[in-house]
């Protein structure tokens, strides 16, 4: 006789892009689905729901993590950053985002938010990454469109521009 599970919602309080947000979710609801459905932050994408493709990547305390592999009920107490948290203001792009536009480091855009967050996190802790560092940093983000070439160039370009603008690193985005 299988146990019958009534739908029991738990209240979660999450810090997303610097704001406290609340939602009532089943324990089984992933952070990804909560971001998308409860907070309407649809920039994080579902590609595989088993932790391989990286389209769901968000930053947890500044580190790239798979939001499809975390339940919302586990995600309190962290600083969660989604792609929506990167733009300095509506209509403006961060240096990393603009670098991706400059080198055309994307095509369909589906892997792009996760890719950019991974790039952002890399450049926060390493201001002069070599090619090997870049490849490793994005190795958890699969892209089927670009073959990665223009993505690597975008990150190199962003690193260069960030060095020149003297932007302080290592702080919260």
């Amino acid at each position, binding site marked *: 006789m299988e146990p019958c599970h009534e739908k*029991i919602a738990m209240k979660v309080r999450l810090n997303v892009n610097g704001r406290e947000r609340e939602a009532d979710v089943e*324990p*089984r609801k992933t952070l990804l689905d909560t971001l998308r459905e409860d907070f309407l932050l649809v920039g994080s994408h579902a590609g595989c729901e*088993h932790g391989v493709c990286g389209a769901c990547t968000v930053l947890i305390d500044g580190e*790239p993590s*798979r939001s499809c*592999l975390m*339940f919302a009920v*586990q995600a309190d107490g962290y600083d969660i950053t989604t792609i929506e948290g990167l733009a300095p203001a509506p209509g403006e792009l961060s240096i990393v985002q603009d670098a991706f536009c400059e080198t055309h480091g994307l095509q369909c855009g589906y892997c792009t938010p996760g890719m950019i967050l991974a790039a952002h996190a890399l450049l926060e802790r390493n201001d002069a990454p070599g090619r090997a560092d870049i490849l490793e940093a994005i*190795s958890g983000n699969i892209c089927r469109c670009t073959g990665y070439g223009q993505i690597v160039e975008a990150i190199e370009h962003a690193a260069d521009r960030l060095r020149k603008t003297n932007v302080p690193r290592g702080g919260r985005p």
Partner: protein
Amino acid sequence: MKPAPFDYVRPDSLGEACAILASDVDTRIIAGGQTLVPMLAMRLARPARLVDILRLKELHGISTEENAIVIGAVTRQVEVERSEIIRRSLPLLAKALPWVGHPPTRNRGTVGGSIANADPSAEIPLVAITLGAEIEIANPSDRTRMPADEFFIGPMLAAVMPGDCVCAVRFPLWTQARVGTGFHEVSARRSDFAFVAAAAQVALDQVGRCIAATLGLGGVGDRAIRIDVAPLVGNVPTREAITDIVRAATKALDASSDLHASADYRRRVAATLGIRALDDAFAEAASGHGALP
């Protein structure tokens, strides 16, 4: 791919966690979730309840004891990867870490999670086996230490009973002056499960004789194993001796066969990588660059 419904509890103490685990068989531990959540998503695992131990401070941290480095179960893999203590005192583990999954999974995945998952091709269990680590396990009544050899019993099978919680892994510290390590892995892609991985640690005396050696192989059979390299001890290591011992030991190894690699492949590459890992370890020990404090 949504999991079947479950309840979620986050106990405040290890004792509470063990009590919950013991009281209900249909309960599983969640820490980093990097291996459990995909199984839940595919409904291959359907626990009625998840017990979240990730925030238990008593299970977190890297500490040095007289003869061992102790890593708390919920220490994240990335913390081990970046740890100065590990780099200096457990260089074999430091070499293995970059091969564990990829950066995002190391950011959340835990050492205890990897150990408890008991994947035959996983790198952290391999290092545990190679170095003869002990797994510290708590249950409602007591706390025990189990040698890694006994802990890993089969593919994805660990010697845990209902109510058990892996608390820590204790890696023995080598205190010899000239220690070297080597780690090699082959996988389809960098981040994939290893087809074969080899982990070696050796020590030399002042005249270049081997005074200690251990070699572990992962991914070949249904769990990581140690190869008997005792004949190397007491002699100056030679390429021939290393090759002979490793080839002899790997010729008849139990090896699994799947879509990605045949059993023959695993045995063949186990030999190749085992030799390379020992070569690297001896070279490092001889050069003095692997010296421990």
